[in-house]
């Protein structure tokens, strides 16, 4: 049965590569360093908005213009971290009205970050210890993400989830 493990498509000259399926918004790949710089500027802006107690604009700024691309891993990581910070800082009761204010495109991007967060959360060492004092807010908190996911699905429907799964522009 070992023949079943042979990658027959590799011999195909017209094989379709992953890069060819990626849809660039303006046809060009962004430079990874430039993407990282953009996200760093963005993170300062978001922190300022959070300290000014403006979570709505902080969220919109954080999810706006994500560093899409095939080689922008560092920028993506930093951006995801910022979004998680914002999500953690918003009170559970404020989630629904906030989501309603977002456009469909923004809702889709937010859902992408929620799925990214869930993919990277749940490491045993990350879990907050139960004690007398409430655990400090930490990024990639699944409980928070699930709460956001529930509310977002309520508004944007399953279509939003399907778009996140199919979209090659990952965050």
């Amino acid at each position: 049965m070992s023949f079943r493990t042979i990658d027959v498509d590799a011999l195909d000259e017209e094989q379709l590569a992953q890069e060819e399926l990626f849809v660039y918004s303006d046809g060009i790949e962004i430079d990874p360093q430039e993407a990282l710089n953009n996200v760093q500027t963005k993170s300062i802006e978001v922190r300022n908005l959070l300290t000014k107690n403006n979570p709505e604009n902080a969220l919109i700024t954080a999810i706006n213009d994500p560093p899409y691309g095939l080689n922008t891993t560092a920028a993506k990581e930093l951006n995801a971290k910022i979004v998680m910070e914002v999500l953690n800082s918003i009170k559970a009761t404020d989630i629904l009205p906030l989501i309603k204010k977002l456009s469909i495109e923004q809702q889709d991007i937010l859902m992408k970050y929620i799925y990214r967060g869930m993919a990277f959360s749940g490491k045993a060492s990350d879990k907050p210890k139960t004690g007398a004092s409430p655990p400090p807010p930490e990024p990639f908190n699944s409980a928070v993400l699930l709460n956001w996911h529930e509310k977002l699905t309520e508004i944007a429907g399953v279509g939003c989830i399907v778009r996140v799964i199919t979209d090659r522009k990952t965050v």
Partner: protein
Amino acid sequence: MSQTEIRQFNFGPITTHAFNKDRTQVAICPNNNEVQIHQRTAGGWSLIHTLVEHDKLVTSIDWAVESNQIVTCSQDRNAYVWNFDQTNGKWKPTLVLLRFNRAATFVRWSPNETKFAVASGARCIAVCYFDEVNDWWNSKHLKKPIRSTVLSLDWHSNNILLAAGCADFKARVFSAYIKGVDQRPAPTPWGDKLPFNTVCGEFSNGGGGWIHSVAFLPSGDALAITGHDSQITIIYPGQESYAIKTNNLPFLSLLWVNENQLIAAGYDCVPILFERQNDQSWEFSKILDASSKKKNINESSTAFNRFRDLDARGISSRSGSDETELKTIHQNTITSLRPYNGTPGDISHFSSSGLDGRLVIWNFQSLESQFKGLKV
């Protein structure tokens, strides 16, 4: 006929279906290598012919209503054109030279029935035409720049342009002009010089997802595409395109009712209507399945249902059939929408079939009036 007509043809899926001209016969594929032709009778439908020539799953059927020819294609990489032989009352197959090395996935006759196009997994589309000299159906391949399996096709009303939805996340509009078969076409918004294999447009839905269905506007001046991203994009060549991001599961089939109304159906098991608002944007209008809104109707008769199921299907549902039954008419994904009555651009009835083995004929006009008061 005023109501929605439902017919369970198969307990497994109906892969595809196509009606004849006066809608008295329907060709369906019961998810195997056969094509069944059913005749409408006083009491319902009866099986009159079974066409067996393919040796793998039949993927698509199209009935040329004027010339009364059926074309079928299959995963066995072949297509057959079937002609009805009056003398012995049987359908006679003719093999088409497709020259595919992968499965054929989709087939459609061109509007004037001189050609048909077959899509395939071999990254190409065969445009087939009748070769009088050799007395067979010959084909020409549309290859570039297709990068993956072609999943759906639609002909422009001018018999030349062909739209293709592809698994490489793109929809394309090609010229399928065959010298000697076609007249020189009039200019369209898609272009005016159209030798064979001209790519008149290549469209992406923005992110990704296979393009499941493509459909030209009846006038041919726009193209609707839908993919696995639950989004419908309506493209006006050289102008703005409209993307409708829906809350629903993805759609598998599109059908234009007229220039301003589009029906889509797929994994949500219901046909959904989209409308153009004030000649501007396109928006979700309504779900065209009244029963999807009703609550359990037969709650009191679960015992009856249980015995009926025992009798009809030989299975006993544990707690009444309501629990496993959807409230929609289709009980599973709708895979195909076809016009049933009316002219292109003014459809009054349409038919749908899907994985539940049901063929449903919908009266669009009566559904429209039924919902009129409910419009939000």
